[in-house]
């Protein structure tokens, strides 16, 4: 195989693995929210502004969730990677979601669900309410 093709293959392997991890984290997060009695309205809702992972509601308040999944804390906690730029993008996408579904004024909360899936050991879900 050509060296560049080999590198591309390698990259796509890593990419696939991290996509899988993200999906697994999102499934875990959706289960977690459902376990808390919330109703999940949208998953991976996209628009031209970007994507939100989970939008749920507890009947009064719209809960917009960013799910961050990591397999270890070697490069920091999962929740640390939610930067202010990302928070701003999630706000814009949420506005687009509200427009798309013609939802009027409602209370909105932005949460972060930090899912830690170590290769050996139990999975933990950390729920930061009103993170930003």
């Amino acid at each position, binding site marked *: 195989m050509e060296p560049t093709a080999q590198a591309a293959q390698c990259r796509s392997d890593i990419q696939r693995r991290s996509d899988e991890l993200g999906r697994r984290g999102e499934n875990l997060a959706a289960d977690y929210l459902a376990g808390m009695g919330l109703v999940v309205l949208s998953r991976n809702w996209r628009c031209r502004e970007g994507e939100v992972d989970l939008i749920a509601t507890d009947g009064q308040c719209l809960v917009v969730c960013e799910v961050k999944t990591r397999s270890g804390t070697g490069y920091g906690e999962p*929740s640390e990677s939610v930067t202010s730029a990302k928070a701003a993008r999630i706000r814009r996408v949420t506005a687009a979601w509200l427009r798309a579904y013609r939802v009027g004024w409602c209370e909105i909360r932005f949460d972060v669900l930090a899912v830690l899936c170590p290769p050996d050991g139990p999975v933990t879900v950390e729920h930061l309410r009103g993170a930003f």
Partner: protein
Amino acid sequence: MSLASSWAVALHGVDGVLVEIEAHIGPGLPGLQMVGLPDTALSEARDRVRAAVLNSGERWPPRRMTLALSPATLPKGGSSYDLALSCALLAADGRVPAQRLQGLVLIGELALDGRLRRVRGVLPAVLAARQVGIGEVVVPTASLAEASLVDGVRVHGATCLKEVLGWLRNPDGTELARPGPPRPAPLAAVLDLGDVLEQGDARWAVEVAAAGGHHLLLTGPPGTGKTMLAQRMVGLLPALTNQEALEVTAVHSVAGLLSPETPLITVPPFVAPHHTSSVAALVGGGSGLAKPGAVSRAHRGVLFLDEVAEFGPRSLEALRTPLEDGEVRLARRDGVVRYPARCQLVLAANPCPCAPPDERDCTCAPSARRRYLGRLSGPLLDRVDLRVAMRPVKDMGQADAEPESTATVRARVLQARVAARARWVGTGWSTNAEVPGPVLRRRFRLPRAVTEPIAAALHRGMVTARGADRTLRLAWTVADLAGRDRPLVEDVSMAMGLRDRRAP
């Protein structure tokens, strides 16, 4: 526990202000906020502290953390808060007993691997801690000797964050470095007065200046030993008293000039700024909060301005108020600071721009000569009691008599200083140079017969009234050197002779 506090010290000139550092850990996205007017160096503490905490094997709390530095309105800067910041954070996280941080000041900059680095201004910081009754201080080991100069405070030295954390958790089991016995300061190589050839007048003038604390101006052709004499002047001055040594050391600590080998400055400093120095370099300055300049570094010592006629007029004028008040007050964006500036001025200048070895060979136009020394403004020269013109050396030292050494002259100077101090005790002055003219003319009035030479010169217009006061001050110093309790006619004549009438 999600709330804790620790103590650090902010420097405001040579004064320290105690700063309480509060740490709060609350829910939210992980991150660290710092409030309390930090400057750039202090804002960067965020990254230093994080790396140091992680590399010391501690957990970095994945929470929203807020650090508040109080008093919040006081601008704070520098890297000396790192240790206190990290300890407050870890205490808020419950990793360190929070009550151990009370009554304890923490000073030091953190390296990314957790090592503690020395910072400037440790001595004023420890003094400030003692003033508010805090009895325990942790400093970097490199600053331990400097910090231990303050009595009544338990000082600990640490090399890294890990060591400090271990000590906080288990004060009985682990012991931080304690200051060793005070080491005698290494004797600085004193330049000997015996090296200077001839120049009897100028040597005598240096002796009088040292004895009375008078400012001195030496003029003469190049190569006659003006600089040599000035450098040997500090060797004649008495060693600093404890209080003076602390003052001088505090200034040098703030300027970041102390070395771990010589934490305490016990000999009068000698500072010789170049004649291109800016105003800020001479009297202090800089953005934010002003830093000490040459005049403060020379506090209780000698400020030597070589080629004084080449200094910019603005630089020289800037020296006037510090010399008058004995301190500099500098206003900058972040506030007004006071630095002590009680130094003895020694000025050296050539008589003219061309400065030939023999003045008769001068090729300068008379107007150029006048302009050259005319750059020394009247108001500055007013403060200079002694003005001596030096002549070219004519003999290479085969002369029969060996010139007097520093030790011999110093003994006379010290005796004269003791006599002067005894006379002015209770008045706030310690040297003759500080005594105002009216006091000399009224409270310490000399008999008419003694002051006759001055009166005659005044009458003939040879000296001004101010010049007469100056001559009187010198006469007292000459008498002190001669071991008399008041000046006689010959002392007054000698004083008149020491004032070079040709010099401006």
